[in-house]
């Protein structure tokens, strides 16, 4: 969620949204600038393309594909904001194309669609997101406590609420794209896992069944310290996950318990607190 008074990047409220279904219906011709090219170079190409009422950016890209540029590369699957495939940057903002309604743009506004900047481009709007899959594979796997004697796991809803928020993640990698730690510093990719995987660590840390301690790893291997909590990840998340407030900051606090807080450390040694 975007804090009031701040420009929103991921939200729907950019002041112009009049909403689909309102207004005079009917289509119009929009001007689109789409980045086309591959790793060896490319540029923004301008198209004039018809737009109908109620459409989203992805519809228009598909129309381009079907009528003007048959080989325009774009990734998509569900067209309903559920799979996280159609990530791109629309007018410089990381967005899901299928959730960006055309009604949020003025009819005479040029809409610029570019691939995610943080990742190597494959072709046109498609980028190589393998960085994310590599980081995912490095996270120490879920390690549950044994089941109850009757073969069930018992957990209370209040205990699963927190990790469930993070499991809403559709892996669109918009947060990874927008995070300046890697967006502006390619060399940090080695040491930093990105917000998506910091909340994955937070999820596992807060998982009522998990018995593993990932706090040291979070700091040393996944680069939690690189995050300066500037919250761009929370701003772009299409699932409305509060990455920073509910995931990254609590994780930083948990790491502080272990690393930077002599009192808590002492407490845990004497065994008053949760053993770590």
């Amino acid at each position, binding site marked *: 969620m975007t804090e009031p008074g701040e420009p929103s990047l991921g939200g729907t409220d950019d002041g112009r949204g009049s909403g689909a279904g309102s207004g005079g219906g009917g289509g119009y011709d929009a001007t689109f600038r789409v980045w086309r090219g591959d790793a060896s170079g490319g540029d923004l190409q301008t198209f004039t393309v018809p737009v*109908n009422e109620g459409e989203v950016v992805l519809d228009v890209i598909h129309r381009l594909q079907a009528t003007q540029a*048959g*080989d325009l590369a774009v990734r998509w699957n569900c067209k309903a904001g559920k799979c996280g495939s159609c990530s791109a940057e629309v007018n410089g903002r990381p967005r899901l194309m299928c959730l960006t309604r055309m009604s949020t743009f003025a009819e005479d506004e040029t809409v610029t669609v570019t691939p995610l900047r943080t990742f190597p481009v494959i*072709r046109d709007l*498609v980028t190589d997101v393998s960085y994310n899959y590599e980081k995912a594979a490095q996270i120490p796997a879920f390690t549950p406590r044994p089941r109850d004697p009757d073969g069930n*796991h*018992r*957990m209370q809803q209040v205990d699963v609420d927190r990790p469930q928020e993070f499991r809403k993640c559709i*892996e669109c990698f918009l947060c990874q794209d927008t995070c300046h730690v890697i967006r502006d510093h390619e060399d940090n990719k080695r040491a930093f896992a990105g917000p998506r995987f910091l909340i994955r660590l937070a999820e596992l840390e807060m998982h009522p069944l*998990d018995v593993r301690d990932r706090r040291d790893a979070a700091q040393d291997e996944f680069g939690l310290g690189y995050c300066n909590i500037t919250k761009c990840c929370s701003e772009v998340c299409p699932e409305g996950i509060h990455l920073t407030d509910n995931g990254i900051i609590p994780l930083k606090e948990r790491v502080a318990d272990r690393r930077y807080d002599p009192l808590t450390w002492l407490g845990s040694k004497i065994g008053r607190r949760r053993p770590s």
Partner: protein
Amino acid sequence: MDFERHAYDVVVVGAGGAGLRAAIAAHEAGARTAVVCKSLLGKAHTVMAEGGIAAAMGNAWPEDGWRVHFRDTMRGGKMLNHWRMAQLHAQEAPDRVRELEDWGALFDRTPDGLISQRDFGGHRFARLAHVGDRTGLELIRTLQQRTVALGVDVFMECTVTRLLTDDEGVTGAFGYWRESGRFVAWEAPSVVLATGGIGKAYKVTSNSWEYTGDGHSLALQAGAGLVNMEFVQFHPTGMVWPPSVRGILVTESVRGDGGVLRNSAGNRFMFDYIPDYFRKETAETEDEADRWYDDKKNNRRPPELLPRDEVARAINSEVKAGRGSPHGGVFLDIASRRPAEYVRRRLPSMYHQFKELADVDITAEAMEVGPTCHYVMGGVEVDPDTAAAGVPGLFAAGEVAGGMHGSNRLGGNSLSDLLVFGRRAGAAAAEHAAKRSGLVALAEEALTDAARAALAPFEREGGENPYTVQQDLQQTMHDLVGIIRTAPEMEQALTRIAALRERVAALSVEGHRQYNPGWHLALDLPHLLVVSECIARAALEREESRGGHTRDDFPAADPEWGRTNLVCSRAADGAVTVARRPLPQMPPELAEVFEEAP
């Protein structure tokens, strides 16, 4: 030709729920396993599943058990299901769900801390394990994380275009990297098909572009049979407005949680469409239906929760009779029946979806919904216990396999189907591979031939663009082989499909091989055509109405057809043929289940 080559014991095609579950099972059985999928890992269509996983765990209702689930499944499928599949499915689903928790899944809980279970159409008891309304996402993420933790190799954005076989059975598969357009071949004694469905044959569908019937078509080409292809499920509630999201699913949980269907006059029309078959267990008055949500013991279910085929047909008739909503659907109303807070908590992603896509606040106004092509009951004919298809080394699980759901699938039974038969397929594939390892080799001519076929669209010039052909096919299926079918229309459809086949053969694509969606579609279209033909031929053959197959010219169910399966196969000359086969009969002990009190 020089290809990238790999050797595995088991190659799983498709990374949805069934594919990943199969890969996990094969890996755990010791097989060298690879998963090949058209999209990125974790994007498969399974993420779209909302409602839950049907499993008779008895957490909400101790009375529930596999026998009741089995009976519900069979009745929902109008008794055309393969009894053994329905039995295995009902028996094993609870364990498959519990095991997901060992891999990190976080289902919603009951007050005792067990997995919470929700009501769904056609299920006698509340039995869908769920996570809000994003259960599919939870399932796929859990399996994905497990697959990665085990270290299974995944070939992402890679499409299989051919299965390779010799006289002994499967020897491997051939495909291309979507990214580079380069070819790749896998040598493997076992291949598990888990490619999902065929929704892209229809104009209004809840399915993604991936659903082009690849697995159905690959199996057919390899010599396996497709059973029950005439049964296509139209989900009663898809979005109808705005046009660009037409077909996107509105989960059945909206109705399970209190939503009702109304026509333009504001009537709950479903009360007029209760079939005799379900009259005993369906409420007769609105009062009784409303009481059911709180007191399920003493009241009967609202008719909105009848099986999907019934509801879809009812909506279709209302719209045809001119009582539809402004954009050609009916109203699904939860706003006036439940507090806004409740709706947001129980149906968060529906709330989100309507807000984002249609700018409709479902806590304040009714949704407009109409039928959308959702699922194909038909698929590869398999052995229930091993998921083995007719060709040695070929296995199929999930939507691409047929038989489990008969003529109509109950909501929630798909996710459990994926898990139960995904695991069985993976294990059996590993076992088969152990016997055949070292005995398979890829035939060079077959590879060269597959490569040549894949490149053909580039060679041709001045042909049509594949998008137009796909649209025409979708229109044909929508108009002529849709929810309500008649013989003349289907005959016309077959003529058109034949014409489309020629157009596909003459297609040409622009650009080069690197990430070229036009080319990818051109290679998917032949699959789509052959499945469409199977659907049309089988539908023309079955002269009765049952489940997901409704004939205007034969409106009643026919007991004789109730004992008959239709199996499509490919003749030597490549033509699709349809044969009648007797339906496997269940043993008497099982048949007794249908006498038991509900």
